[in-house]
Structures are given as C-alpha cells and as structure tokens.
C-alpha cells in the first residue's frame, strides 16, 4: 500500500516536480539579490520576451518526441516572416491573412524537411542543418540582407486580449494546441510510438510518411507563428534576427525532459524548461552579469540535463537487465 510518504517520494522523482523545485529556489535567490526581479513589470516582460521561444519550442518538442530533431525552425521562421511581411506591405491585409500566410509558408518548408528525411532515410539533424543553411542563405541572398521597416500600422500597433499582451496569447495558444495534439489526439500517441520504436509503430499500421509530414510540418507551422510574433514585437523584419535561437530552444526543451533519443517529453516539462532558462538569464542580467554569460549558461544547461537524462537511462537499463523476468 502506498502511504503518503512514498507518494511524496514518487512525486519528487518526477522530472517536472524537480524542475519546479529548482525554479522556486532560483526565484527565491534572485528575489533576495535583486529587488526588481519579482516585480509585476519584470515578470510580464519576461513572459513576453520568452513567448517567441515558447512557440518555437512547441514544434521542436513534437519533433524530438517523434525521434527526430529540427535545427531549421529559426530559419523557417525568418523566411516565413519575411515573405509574409512583403505580401502584407505590398497588398495590405489583416492578422488572419498574416497568420495563414506565415503558418502556411512555415508548414511547406517543414514538409520539405519531412520528405527529405523520410525518402532519403537521412539523419534529421543533417537534413535540417542543411535546410537551415539553405533557407537562411537564400533569404539573405535574395533580399541582400535588407530589413523591412515599413510594416503596416495594424501590424505594429499594440495588441492585447483581456489585457494579456499579444505574444503571450499566441504562445499560450501554441502550447494548448500542442497539448491537444500530443495527449488528446490519436496522432499524438502515434508520434510517441514512432519516437519510442519506429519498427513497432510501422507494424501496428502507423503511416510513417504521414507522421513525418505532421511533425516537421507542425514545427514549421509554429515557426511561422513565432516569426510573426517576433516581427510584431520589434516592429521590423530583420532577416538575421531569429537565427541563433536554435540552441536556446533546444536547451529549454531538453531541460524539460524531452529525450534526444525520442519517445519522451511533455508540454508541461517544456514550459518549466523555458521558465528555468528565462529566470536564469533574467536573474543574471539583473545582477549585472555580462550577457556574454548567457551562452555559457545555455551550454552548461544542455550539458547537465543531457548528462542527467543519459545517466538515468543508464541506471534504468541496468535495473531492467537484472529484473528481466
């Protein structure tokens, strides 16, 4: 019979509970060291700053669960953002059109990744690094690296829903959409199965081509969202603005418990991963530590969380080898 003690112990072993604990401790430390840290202004700014990252993380999470990886999402976001911006500057339009266009471009670029990975049986990391380089270089080549500043007024105007800033609304929507996909739809279960054991997934009749298109297409689609939100926040479209975010997003998702080996990961874990990274970077800024340390922190976080996951998997394997029957 489980008593309350063992229930609490079991809860402490859960990844997201551990993360929540670390977040609380860090928040406590930073709030004693810096008076502004826990102010409402800082927290809302923090959420808004990291909303673009949260949106992109949704796509990457789904790809990681399926057993692949997508490095190209920031480049996809940049391309979708730029194409959409050109169209709405030239022809006008509204938010619905902007979203449909940007998500549509993102989806198509994601499908290109999916088809290459599926039909060439190539490693997703190699394919998406190549497409990242290609998409981004193409963008710079064609546009000559020119930024777009003359975005329509309706696009750059402040926007909020029930007082919640627009980027946070979009991020929340993307997170909810991902929860729906992963834990309420049959497709979600198939994505986990694909990542956990592709051959078993194939044998029970999963459509592997369809699933590849779904996960990489979804990653591209939400990257399209992210590109729009970024352009709205900074009120301009700079081709290179989003490039370089890949590692931060990857750090957050892996920190949140998604395995690079596929088959595991949750939206709640990803949220905690982003919050942890956000607090860490924001706290360091408020303490006056150079922003050059961000990369240091990100790298260290990936290293530590990958080591912890690998170590846990190693112990799990040892245990199951002893108790095989």
């Amino acid at each position, binding site marked *: 019979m489980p008593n309350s003690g063992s229930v609490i112990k079991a809860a402490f072993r859960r990844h997201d509970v551990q993360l929540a604990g670390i977040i609380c401790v860090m928040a406590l430390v930073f709030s004693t060291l810096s008076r502004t840290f826990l102010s409402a202004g800082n927290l809302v700014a923090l959420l808004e700053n990291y909303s673009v990252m949260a949106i992109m993380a949704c796509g990457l999470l789904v790809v990681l669960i399926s057993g692949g990886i997508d490095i190209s999402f920031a480049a996809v976001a940049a391309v979708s953002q730029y194409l959409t911006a050109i169209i709405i500057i030239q022809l006008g339009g509204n938010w619905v059109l902007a979203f449909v266009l940007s998500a549509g471009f993102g989806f198509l670029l994601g499908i290109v990744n999916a088809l290459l990975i599926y039909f060439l049986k190539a490693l997703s990391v190699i394919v998406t690094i190549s497409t990242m380089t290609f998409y981004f270089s193409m963008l710079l080549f064609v546009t000559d690296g020119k930024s777009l500043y003359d975005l329509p007024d309706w696009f750059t105007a402040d926007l909020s829903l029930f007082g919640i800033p627009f980027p946070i609304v979009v991020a929340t929507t993307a997170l909810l959409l991902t929860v729906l996909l992963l834990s309420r739809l049959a497709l979600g279960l*198939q994505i986990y199965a694909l990542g956990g054991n592709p*051959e078993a997934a194939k044998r029970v009749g999963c459509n592997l081509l369809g699933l590849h298109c779904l996960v990489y297409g979804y990653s591209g689609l939400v990257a399209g969202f992210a590109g729009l939100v970024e352009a709205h926040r900074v009120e301009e479209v700079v081709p290179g603005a989003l490039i370089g975010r890949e590692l931060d997003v990857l750090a957050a998702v892996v920190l949140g418990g998604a395995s690079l080996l596929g088959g595991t990961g949750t939206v709640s874990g990803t949220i905690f991963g982003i919050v942890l990274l956000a607090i860490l970077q924001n706290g360091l800024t408020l303490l006056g530590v150079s922003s050059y340390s961000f990369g240091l922190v990100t790298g260290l976080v990936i290293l530590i969380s990958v080591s912890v996951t690998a170590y846990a998997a190693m112990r799990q394997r040892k245990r199951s080898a002893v108790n095989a029957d």
Partner: protein
Amino acid sequence: MDEPTASLTHEEVAALLATIHELNRQGIATVFVSHRLDEVMTIAERVTVLRDGHNLGTYWVRELDRRRLAELITGHVFESSLKPAFSVKSAPMLEVRGLTREGQYHNIELEVRPGEIVGLIGRLGAGRTELALSLFGMNPPDSGEIWVDGKQVQLRTNQDAIRHKIAYVSEDRLSLGLVMPQTIADNAVVSVLDRLTGPLGLIDETHRTETIKRWIFQELRVKTNNAERPVQQLSGGNQQRVVLAKWLATDPRVLLLDSPTVGVDIGAKAGIFQVVDALAKRGIGILLISDEIEEVLYQSHRILVMRSGAIVGTYDPRRVSEQELREAIYA
C-alpha cells in the same frame, strides 16, 4: 556470466552463445546464470538448479530433458499432452496457394481453419519469418495467392493485412513489438486508435479505458495494478502478454505467432499457451512459428516443416515423434 541474455534480441543471443562456445574451445570455463531453459540446454554441459535459495543438485545436461529441468526449477510437474484431433470441417480462414518469393520461399501451400493451430517449424533461415512477413503484407510475394475467409486478398502493406484482420506477433518483442518508454496502456491501444477516436480524431477516454480493462486485465491478465506504468517495468512473460493484447484488440481472424515464447520463462510460457488455446476455441485461425520441436508438438493440431524455403512435410502431432521431426527439419 550473470543473466547475459536478459536484454538481448533473438539474433544477439545466438551470437553470444556462439562466442561462449568459442571461448570454451580456448579452454575458458564459463558459469552461465540464466532462467532460460533453451539457452541452458544449448550451452551447458552441467547444470546446477537453485530454487528458493536451495541447491537442488547438479546434473549432466545430456541426462536431462527440458521437461525434467522445468520441473526441477519450478517444483511443478508439467503435464504436456497432445492436442485432440482437429475435426472441424469448416472452410479455411487462411489459404495460401503457390506463394513464391525468389530467394526466400517457393510454392508454399497451406491452409488454417477457424480454431486450428498450425505449427510451422524450421531452422533459422528456412524462410519461416519471410513467409510470415508476406502474410502480413510486409514482404510482397512474387507470385501465388492468399485467401482470407474465402476471399482472395492483395497484401501490399501491413495496413492491408490489418484491414483483412490478420495480426502478427513478431519474433522479437523488444525491438519490433513494444514501445518501451510508453505505458502498458498506450502500447495496448496503439493498434486500435482508429476505433477509439471520435470525428475530430480525439481519443474517447471511456472507450480507451474499456479496451484496456478488457484486454490487459480480463483477457490477458497482465500482472500489474496500474496500466499507466511504463511497459519496460514488466517481466518478459507479461510484456509478451501486452503484445498479444495489442493484437487481439484488433479482433483478428488470423493470428500469426512468430516465436511467441522466446525469452519467456517456463511458467509464463504455459500461461501464454493457455491464452492461445482460448483464442483458437473462439475460432481464430492460428499459425504458430517456432524453433522448438516440443512447442509445435504439444501446442498445435498440425505441423508443417519448412526447409530451404519449401514446406517439406505435414505431420500429425499424434503420429510423429520428436526424433522424426528433428530429422525432417535438419535433413
């Protein structure tokens, strides 16, 4: 070597045993700790049996047979009895006519009637698994016909086979059957997702719970109190029950069982065959593929021997000895 084969696949086990033989030739002595009868019978010269912390003695393997060893290990006497003659004369559930795939098998003729268990035995490489994969749509034949329930079918992908109510429990549950990080429940329902979902593709929770209750707890009696636990925490025998549950949930008419008891201990084996018998009584046609002569002899109504890609003989278990079967297989 302490349980060296616990997490290995079928082929890896064979490779390991070959390595041990080689070491043996070089004069290295091996203590091989295992609960798997086949491996012990293959690799060992002498065997010491431990049960509940007691030493039950050391025996020469050549003086033991598997049944005697199983009795020593478990303390139970295993009654193996042959199946009664199969007398149902209904039309075949599965019928194969002149099936050929170059380089793998040729001119295969077989039929499985509803409720019949047909054993298919042959050496590794005899073409058994290749044939089974063809019957499951994953290895299209070059020529020949496959009939299911009186209708000729074209099986180009395994999705076709599943649609025609053919289920295939593959020879290696670790690498081909289960999604290890997932829960028992998710592993069990992944084959029937299309039936559990509403118009928007949303999973119907009550339907899901019912499916799990029926197949995991009632029909297969998997030893767990919580189906939301990772499947990797189960023992080999119970994992195999989950694989069976997954395929039975699809409500198959033909069940292809490819070496269903590899790596399952002797007590759990009997349990799995009880399930198989119950399925046959319900009218499912079962093709049982196995490496073990004893298994096909005691668990099937009819035995087909496959050698170098052809079926070389059909035997009635009540009129053939183990020795005769061995000769047919290894001739």
